[in-house]
């Protein structure tokens, strides 16, 4: 098991190194023809108006919040799924069904409150 995590460390170095090295390689090879027009924001040929640091729509925040809730639930379910076979199945499964029912009720609540409406 120690070797596996050693490999993971080497993997991390290689994957970041690959991305950085390819950018450095391109930096060494590519031509440089700077031009003030090139550095303008792409907006289909017309000059860009205003800044992009604007207030964005609230619904993205709601989706992110729902994601955090349900992803944490997933982290509760995964250890249960791994160890369920080794325990008293009837009890463990019944308990998880209660948990999933609560989760599902939460989804229904978000649904009824209009958190899933997108527009």
């Amino acid at each position, binding site marked *: 098991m*120690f*070797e*596996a*995590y*050693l*490999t*993971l460390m*080497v*993997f991390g170095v*290689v*994957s*970041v190194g690959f*991305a950085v090295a*390819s*950018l450095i*390689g*391109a*930096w060494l*090879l*590519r*031509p*440089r023809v700077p031009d003030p027009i*090139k*550095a*303008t*924001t*792409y*907006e*289909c040929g017309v000059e*860009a108006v205003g*800044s*992009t640091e604007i207030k*964005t*729509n609230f619904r*993205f925040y709601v*989706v*992110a919040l*729902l*994601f955090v809730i349900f*992803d944490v639930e*997933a982290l509760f*379910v*995964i250890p249960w*799924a*791994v*160890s*369920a*076979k*080794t325990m008293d*199945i009837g009890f463990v*499964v019944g308990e*998880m*069904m209660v948990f*999933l029912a609560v989760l*599902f009720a939460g*989804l229904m609540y978000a*649904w009824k409150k209009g958190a*899933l409406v*997108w*527009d």
Partner: protein
Amino acid sequence: MSETNRENVKNSGEDSQGSAQAPVPGVAKPSIPAAAHAKPAAAAARPAAKPAAPAEVLPEPRLNNGRGRLLGSARLWPTEVWPNPWARPSFVRGAYWLAGIVAGVLLLGWSVGEISVWANLAYDWAMNLLRLRQVPELWAQGAWSAVKVVVVFHLVALAPLFLVWWERKISAHMQSRLGPMYVGGFHGWAQTIADGIKLMLKEDVSPRAADAWIHLLAPIVAAAPAVLAFAPVYFGSGLTAADIDIGVLYIFAVSGMTVIGIVMAGWGSGNKFSLLGGLRAGAQLVSYELPRTFSVIPVILLVGSLNLTAINDFQSGYWLGFIPRWFIFYPVMGQIAFVIFLIASVAETNRIPFDIPEAESELVAGFHTEYSGMKFSLFFFAEYAYVFLSSALVATFFLGGGNAPLPFLRIWPSWLWFFAKTGLIAFCFLWFRWTFPRFRVDRLMDFNWKFLLPWSFANIAFGAVYLFL
């Protein structure tokens, strides 16, 4: 009057008299009323009833100075009509090539056998050598890890090259085109390599409005996890770079980091298209992450492990001696989980029909509008690496990984079966792109939250039923 004649009338401008008298071989010249001569050319050339068009004699094409491979035989221009595809020489030649490639791969797989046997031999040899040289154990293990990582990394780096070429060929043939045909000789196999070199030599334009550091770091943050996520992937019996016990969780966690890179790209570009694309990508990727995770839970539940090798080994064997014990063949639970996982995986890779973040008809190119050169190709690389990863995961979770579909097919090694199944699912990914129209953004979110997520919850209950059997 014939079609050809009408063309001539238009081409010759006002002189309707001269072109109307242009000889058309084989067709009797229709009589034109005298009044028609006074009218403009277009009106005069429109007859009441159209006679059959004569056989047109097109000029011999002289494209590419006659040296091009595609148009070299000018006599095939325009396309000749064949009674059936097998009468066409190129079709027969292609069939021979395909049969030859398949036979070659099967022969290679049969003669090489399990790669893990060779790998173990190499491991023992290398370790003995290093021990004789009195290299510390940690360094020896590190060196062996590096070898494994380099092998897997090359696989991950070459898979997108192949997938891009394959996608272009598939899309071309679905649209009755040929796709890349020139670079490399055989059906343009080197096209992606040439494209990669071209992208590397392209100038990098970073807009003034962009946040320079975020703009630079975003492709690294997006592409590095795409490689890192392959560490625990099962490529065949004994062929796992890092056989960790939390494999599935690790893959989901690491591949989820790409969304940070995409949101960074959208935010850091200083472009409204990028910003919208990045936000949409963030919302979509985190949403589809949920059914993707929940659909695998029944599989984990029945196996009792997050280790990909354990998941693969659980699916070995056959019911009644011929039905493979793959998870896709578990009634109800298997099929629902498979479909949800496949759909969510397509959405996770930002591909059509879920390519709202980079919808070219509304957002130019979405989050990578302002990227060019190598930075752009890192995003491109990440997308295709994730196609490969998702195909590999579908093959491992639901299609039995390296297990043969029938007992007598076990003469071929597990890695060959794994790559065959991965290729099949990867083909489906590329096929979807050229078959389905794009989702509208609100339907996309509804489909996830109101359909996939409730069904993936229900599927956990369906999976739990199997524990009592």
